[in-house]
């Protein structure tokens, strides 16, 4: 169930250039079941920017009722968020949307997780669950440059991890798709989150032959399915009236389900 709660900041720290890791505690952690769901945050309280900001859940700790997010402080809202520190409150609406289906990975499947930039965070909880369930997981994480890289060690500890940077300042130079091709990475199922061009490239290459799940991004109003801000066309009716809402039908869709 979706809850609204003033969660308490447990910790906040900068972990890469403009990238912050924020851990909150609150009762709504009880409702967090799938990796890949997101929360909708009112940053800066009453006087902050008007709209909430959608941010993915990057890890969940039911024991401590805590969850963590990783975000880029770029615009007004996220910059304000980055100023909150332990003991402060953050107004959270969530958990929202449908996450990555862990159960789509079947026994014996080799799993590939591909993330780009601030699309990387939700893959962390996903990887924890998949490895806990016994799957071998490979990670390919793409970033702009060396300064933007985060969580490499965390992913490393869960499975093989490749880093690509657009400017070549760290790891492989180029895009995540280059890594898959160059390194001959093999997989049965692919979960990805990142910029739309990346998702499109993955869908084009693997959408037909593999199990592929993609987490989409779209500007949002309500975050709960009521305002029609975040719709996309369905793949079987690409110019028609049928649609999916990224916030409540997604953000994760099976490749071929919606028009990217």
């Amino acid at each position, binding site marked *: 169930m*979706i809850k*609204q709660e003033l969660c308490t900041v447990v910790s906040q720290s900068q972990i890469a250039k403009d990238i912050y890791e924020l851990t909150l505690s609150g009762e709504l952690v009880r409702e967090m079941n799938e990796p890949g769901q997101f929360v909708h945050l009112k940053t800066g309280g009453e006087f902050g920017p*008007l709209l909430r900001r959608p941010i993915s859940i990057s890890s969940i700790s039911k024991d401590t009722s805590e969850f963590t997010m990783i975000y880029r402080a770029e615009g007004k809202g996220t910059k304000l968020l980055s100023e909150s520190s332990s003991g402060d409150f953050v107004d959270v609406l969530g958990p929202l949307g449908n996450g990555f289906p862990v159960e789509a990975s079947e026994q014996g499947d080799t799993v590939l997780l591909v993330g780009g930039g601030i699309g990387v965070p939700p893959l962390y909880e996903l990887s924890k669950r998949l490895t806990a369930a016994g799957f071998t997981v490979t990670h390919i994480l793409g970033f702009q440059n060396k300064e933007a890289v985060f969580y490499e060690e965390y992913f490393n500890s869960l499975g093989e991890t490749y880093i690509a940077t657009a400017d070549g300042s760290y790891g492989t130079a180029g895009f995540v798709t280059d890594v898959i091709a160059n390194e001959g990475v093999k997989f049965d199922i692919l979960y990805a989150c990142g910029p739309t061009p990346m998702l499109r490239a993955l869908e084009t290459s693997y959408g037909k032959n593999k199990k592929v799940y993609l987490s989409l991004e779209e*500007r949002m*109003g*309500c*975050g709960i399915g009521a305002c029609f801000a*975040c*719709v996309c066309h369905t793949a079987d009716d690409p110019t028609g009236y049928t649609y999916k809402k990224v916030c409540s039908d997604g953000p994760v869709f099976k490749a071929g389900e919606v028009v990217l």
Partner: protein
Amino acid sequence: MKSLEISLPGLSLKNPIMPASGCFGFGREYSGLYDLNQLGAIMIKATTLEPRFGNPTPRVAETTAGMLNAIGLQNPGLDRVLNEELTWLEQFDVPIIANVAGSLEEDYVEVAKEISKAKNVHALELNISCPNVKTGGIAFGTIPEVAKNLTKKVKEVSEVPVYVKLSPNVTNIVEMAKAVEDGGADGLTMINTLLGMRLDLKTAQPILANKSGGLSGPAIKPVAIRMIHEVSQHVSLPIIGMGGVQSAEDVIEYFYAGASAVAVGTANFVDPFVCPKIIEELPVLLQELGFDHISECTGRSWGKHEKLAYHRA
């Protein structure tokens, strides 16, 4: 809450608070968050004759104390609204105000005729003011004669009272209000969004795929208050006010200006529980201010102006 009960043409409401059209879908999502029976009424998303996908995304952009939207009247079309959404809403004891939109006069008339037959639709809200639809739309909301004729046509077929939703993007809103009053409107709802635009610093392009969109939220409240203050003193129709309402205080300000009920739009996105919160806070605030009933607030700002007949009813 006796102090909040109000009655308007076609509407006998527990309280004067309702979500604004387009900001609440058809209620399904919010029904998972709280009991919709608490609401005074629900203004459902605009319904058109045929289903509409609406505009390409991005469809929303934030502005200082406001937001722009260019949804483009996405909706599943008259048939599905009737057969799926309105029937689903029948489980609640809440009157529905159906927002009716179209590009051609015939469309409006057809939708109005059919949707007004639905059991739980107690009033229509004629949306002649959507800034996000290219064809036709504009004239309905900006040319008094055109608005009047449309109102007349819709009144002829509607089985429930008809409220006309006015656009703020006009030189003379009183003239528009009088025209639809002449056309036989039973009430007004105002205001729809102001036309606006935001550009992206990096790309130099509009953030909205549709380029311009409708501005809503607290930023526009003073514009709405001024228009309602003026219109309410020149027509004798009841007004459902809207534009940036976020709190019980805002509701009272709208009543003072001349509104008889208030709709909450954008604030639902900021705080999905805002409507029940306002409904809870209103009686307390009324008492603090020394009113026995919310209707006493309507038109309090008019000062020396004679209060018009309707508002005393």
